[in-house]
């Protein structure tokens, strides 16, 4: 189903820990939003407080390029 589609998946693989809740981040559903467009993704998320982590490579790579494309729409 279209709603279940994820544009991008980042598996935390046990590398990240939420310092506030002291639990490992897990792969969970998240959504990027920009200029009234939404992109469902799977990112490392804290299962307790819901902190969503956007890794540097993702922010400076895919996210930046999609932002630039949308800005010229």
């Amino acid at each position, binding site marked *: 189903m279209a709603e279940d589609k994820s544009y991008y998946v980042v598996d935390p693989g046990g590398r*990240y820990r939420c310092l506030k809740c002291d639990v490992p981040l897990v792969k969970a559903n998240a959504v990027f*939003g920009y200029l009234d467009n939404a992109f469902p993704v799977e990112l490392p998320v804290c299962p307790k407080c819901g902190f969503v*982590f*956007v890794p540097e490579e993702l*922010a400076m790579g895919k996210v930046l390029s999609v932002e630039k494309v949308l800005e010229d729409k």
Partner: protein
Amino acid sequence: MDFTERSTRVYRTKQLYTKEELAARESLCVHEQPAFCAAACPLRLDARELAGHAAAGELTAARAMLERAAPFPGILAAGCEAPCRAACRLNEVPGGQAVDIPAIERAAMRHGTARTGKGLLKFKKKKTAAVFGAELFTLAVAGELAGKSYPTKFYVSEGSAEELIDKCAPFLPADIRAAETGRLGAMDIKLKFGSELTAELVRGSGADIVCVSREVLALLGPAAEPDPVTLYCGEQGVLARTGEEGGVIGAFYDARRAGVSADRLAQGMAPDTMRGEEGPVESRLYTDLSEARPGGSVPEGEGYTPEQAAAEAGRCIQCRCEECVKGCAWLRHYDKFPRIMTREIYNNVGIIMGDHMMNGAINSCALCGQCTVTCPNGYDMAEICLSARRNMVATGKMSLAVHEFALYDQIFSNTEAFLCRAEPGYENCKYVFFPGCQAGAIAPEAVHRAYADLRARLEGGVGILLGCCGLISHWAGREELFDETCAQLRAELDKLGNPTIITACPSCMKTLREAGLGECAGIWDVLLELGLPDCAPRAVGEAVLHDACGARGDAETQAAIRKLVSELGCELSEPEYTGDRSPCCGYGGLAGYAKPEVAADYTKAALEGCEGLQLTYCMGCRDRYARQGAESAHILELIYASPAGDPPGISEKRKNRLTLKQRLLRDIWKEDTHMAPRGYKIEYTPEVKELMEQRMVLESDIETVMQAYREGGEAIYEADTGLRISRYRLGNVTFWVKFTEDAEGYVIHSAYSHRMTVETR
């Protein structure tokens, strides 16, 4: 003022110009006008292109042009009266002589290789054609009609093809005559030699299109005269030349026109239907003759060798109007002429849904107005790009990401770093010093000393106004913020008793003047009157002076600067484009925020051929030249012996403005505005400083993230690197910081940001 992000789902457009307004702008660009030689040629043979081929040694390509232009190119080349010669601009150069195009054509026919093959498979047309009588016009018409695939019969009284060619073109040398005879033979024409040309023969031909020589026309009806445009004689139903003798080129031109009429007649239309533009025209092209060298044609003698043809063709100056492109790095970057740019920008603004491919171009024009000065017709790309930006802001199509940093910088200048005070002891001041936001950001020491000097030597009180003139918002097309800034400045100046504004930046001066904020003078004008301060050097030596684009059209400022720097003992040289023709350094129009690579092109172009000290009177220029590695100085740095050193980063520029304000308040008004210390340390690795500069992350952004982390404790631990990572959403941007923590504070290892929001679902 806060800026809210737009939505890509709002489908709103506003026409940039009416069709008439667009046409009026586009018509100013003459780049696409034909060369003068091509415009003078009835056949519209582009002699400029032909000469270009010949000069490059491509005589086959030149020959192909001739073969396309006329059915008998050998005859044309041998006999053309060459109206292009009179139109050649080289005639206007003292000691110059027009390029001998017919001689080059003859060389092309002699040395170029003939086109082989028949081209596309052509089907014979159903309508038939018949041509009667031997003259150059009928010969050419027969060739034209055969070329248009009409089954063509050619009735002549002559007994052979040689005789026919000799009758039509008696001036041909033997080798050309033989070649053209061969060409006629190869054409798909049924030649009826030895025909007795009578009116009955013509009337009984049964052809749909009939074309006759003047001699045969007289047989048909002594008073018959064809229409001078269509060459159709309705009375007799035939095509023929008018009585005027037009020479060889005229015969070929008439044959082409008769061919057009034949097409109309074959389709049952009136021959004057939709003929388009025919024959010679006036060209509005502009050509710079300043570099054209005098010289005569290479003598043709027995005919040019390919080398002689190349030499003669090489004298062609290839008339083209590229005045704007020569000076503008932006036009060169996009490799398009203003007319094309305008049309594409106009179309871009009209796009309701889809990619706006010209946004980058619209936002990277420096809005400097150089093109308006270099263009012989005053083409104004700045007006077009600025109108487009305003239009995009109004319709919600302008990306906030492009200008947000600069707009917040203006807001920072006019809030946190803003200062407006009267000189102590004065309620109203006669003057106010307005150094401009970049002067405070880049050379705060020079500003501090300049203000002290002005206070010491001017009577009547000199206030200070640290802030932005609003030009940033004007460039960004955000008129609302610009108006707000003007209102703020007006209110502050009012409090000072509307003093004369002494600016240190020509762009500020222009902006404040145009906004009607008061009488403005440059600090250069004041210093010329007061004389240089004692600290000023008197023997600076060699320097290259760069005029600011903000001073374009301001002859007084340009002259005052030259006088002032001569008092500094500067031996000035100037770049190729100087004075009113000066380019932008790349700071203008916020080009660097939209397209850093285009801004870099501007800077490189402005510095081309310039060595040694680059002297400016705009801080934007000073900063960009220094960043490009040039030794550059603003005149205030020289005059007040306070070199600003390496160009500051984005955070340092803010800090400099804030520190200058605090220093002035403390030194002059005895107010201490130092903020309470943070209570913990934030340190940066050298790598992260560079990264932050590149990614436009300010130290203040990092401080906000760290403060939020201290208060909320939200962060994650990255096992691979041992770093902690926290984030905070500041306005429309989420900032992420990677750091280590100890008892004293934090060491920042990396920082990045994104504009997208992210949440769980």
